[in-house]
């Protein structure tokens, strides 16, 4: 039995005619979904009381006259992503920025692999608020800290026992460094777009590293939950290309990282999405708050969660018409943006730069 996502339950409150009959029917008879819908409707009613109010009926004629009389050269209005420029550029290591961006993608892959079923083929990213310790305990509890590092940071092949089965991982080789983008593209099979205009403080491309694709397979033991017992879940990530730019401030001082990675895919030999989700999120090591945040993501088959740690400010942006997540370190030292393009390629741009700079680079790539 497949439960209805929170997003659908929420829309059921406002626009019931837009919901598929099977979902509406399920929501009306399933005790679990009804209980969730009750909580959702309660929060919606609270928001309505807080934010709803009498609707204004402005005088349009007078307003139009005002607009016509207004010079067109008034100050520009800030729009999505164009928040006041308050993030300073800092000459620090790129590691914190890339940690926010690229590690987010990798860790997101681990989370996604753990919660998806027959075919996981995400089409868009979504932020997943998470405490750093929670992410570590979650990934570690699932035994996915091995494969989570498969994007090239670790031993290419291995396996380990889990409390509920085994996990084995295999990468298609070690990461390789190339001197030109063309070589990296040929080695990875990915077409990588790079910005034509670099932010100040960023010099020409310094290195092109290709991480081969890698697969992690979790085999559940026969005593696990219904549907999950005896099944296996294979998760493939990569290949990926990481382009690291240098800095005029010094050799070996990275200033910007640009990542392109193939769409991650997960396949299951039997368990459904709902069964895997229920089983994994019910593991004692998975914090309750995190489990709830993951459920709130909605359709996990098509959503690539981007963990947003407490030390980062997160906002939604649009890159090339696709939703993206902009993360900024709260001290203003680094920022990054992650999005998935229409063809499924996951992109990330990160560095010790301000939000506008990483967004500018992203918009050039997207």
């Amino acid at each position, binding site marked *: 039995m497949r439960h209805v*996502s*929170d*997003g*659908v*339950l*929420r*829309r059921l409150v*406002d*626009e019931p005619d*837009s919901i598929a009959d099977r979902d509406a029917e399920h929501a009306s008879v399933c005790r679990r979904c009804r209980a969730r819908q009750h909580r*959702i409707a309660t*929060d*919606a009613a*609270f*928001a*309505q*009381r*807080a*934010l*709803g*109010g009498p*609707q*204004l*009926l*402005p005088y*349009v004629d007078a*307003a*139009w006259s*005002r*607009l*016509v009389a*207004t010079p*067109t050269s*008034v100050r*520009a*209005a*800030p*729009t*999505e992503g164009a*928040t*006041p420029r308050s993030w300073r550029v800092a000459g620090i290591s790129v590691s914190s920025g890339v940690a926010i961006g690229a590690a987010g993608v990798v860790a997101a892959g681990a989370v996604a692999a753990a919660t998806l079923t027959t075919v996981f083929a995400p089409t*868009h990213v*979504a*932020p997943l608020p998470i405490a750093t310790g929670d992410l570590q305990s979650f990934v570690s509890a699932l035994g996915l800290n091995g494969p989570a590092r498969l994007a090239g940071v670790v031993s290419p092949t291995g396996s380990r026992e889990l409390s509920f089965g085994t996990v084995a991982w295999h990468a298609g080789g070690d990461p390789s460094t190339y001197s030109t983008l063309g070589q990296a593209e040929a080695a990875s099979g990915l077409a990588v777009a790079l910005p034509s205009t670099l932010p100040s403080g960023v010099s020409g491309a310094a290195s092109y590293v290709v991480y081969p694709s890698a697969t992690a397979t979790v085999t559940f033991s026969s005593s696990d939950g219904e549907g999950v017992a005896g099944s296996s879940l294979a998760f493939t990530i990569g290949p990926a290309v990481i382009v690291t730019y240098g800095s005029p401030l010094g050799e070996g001082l990275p200033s910007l990282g640009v990542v392109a990675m193939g769409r991650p895919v997960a396949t299951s030999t039997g368990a459904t999405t709902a069964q895997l989700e229920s089983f994994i999120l019910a593991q004692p090591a998975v914090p309750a708050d995190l489990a709830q945040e993951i459920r*709130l*993501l*909605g*359709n996990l088959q098509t959503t690539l969660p981007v963990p947003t740690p407490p030390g980062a*400010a*997160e*906002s*939604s942006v*649009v890159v090339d*018409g696709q*939703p993206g997540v902009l993360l900024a370190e709260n001290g203003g030292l680094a920022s990054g943006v992650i999005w998935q393009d229409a063809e499924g390629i996951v992109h990330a741009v990160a560095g010790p730069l301000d939000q506008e700079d990483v967004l500018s680079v992203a918009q050039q790539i997207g």
Partner: protein
Amino acid sequence: MMKREAWAARRPEDPRLAGGFETFFREEFAATVRIANAVVRDAHLAEDVAQEAFIATRRRFPDPEQAENAAGWLHAAAAHLALNELRGRRRREGRMHHDIGPNRADGPEDVVVANEDRERVRGALRRLPRHSATVLVLRYSGLAYVEIAEAMGVKVNHVGTMLRRAERALRKEVEHETRE
């Protein structure tokens, strides 16, 4: 670009004030004021914010009928400008006096009645992530899910999830402030 040039050649007057934009303005003004008012709760200020959103929109889309998503862009701009106004107001007020303290006897269900409580909601709105505040403002100004999706540049199926998360976060923020 070609469209804009051809269109401007047909209309030697300032295209930003020509018929296409007036029709767009008349169709969208009330909705835009509602978006701004959902945040600022002041009719005059809401109109000012709406005007500013239209000025930005006509600069970007001189002929909105030729644009794919001028209305969505306008709605998002109104929400962002209103939220910026809210944050600016907070800074201005902070220089003049301290906040009125919350009433500890209030439960979260009572929070929205008095002006003091309304200010608590505004405070919560200020602290929410920008995209959460935006989806709330767009929804509670009366936009449909399809319109919210256009304004925020996301798929319509994603709106329910975003709204759910934002409403949960709003309630938590208000409850948190009520307890303190």
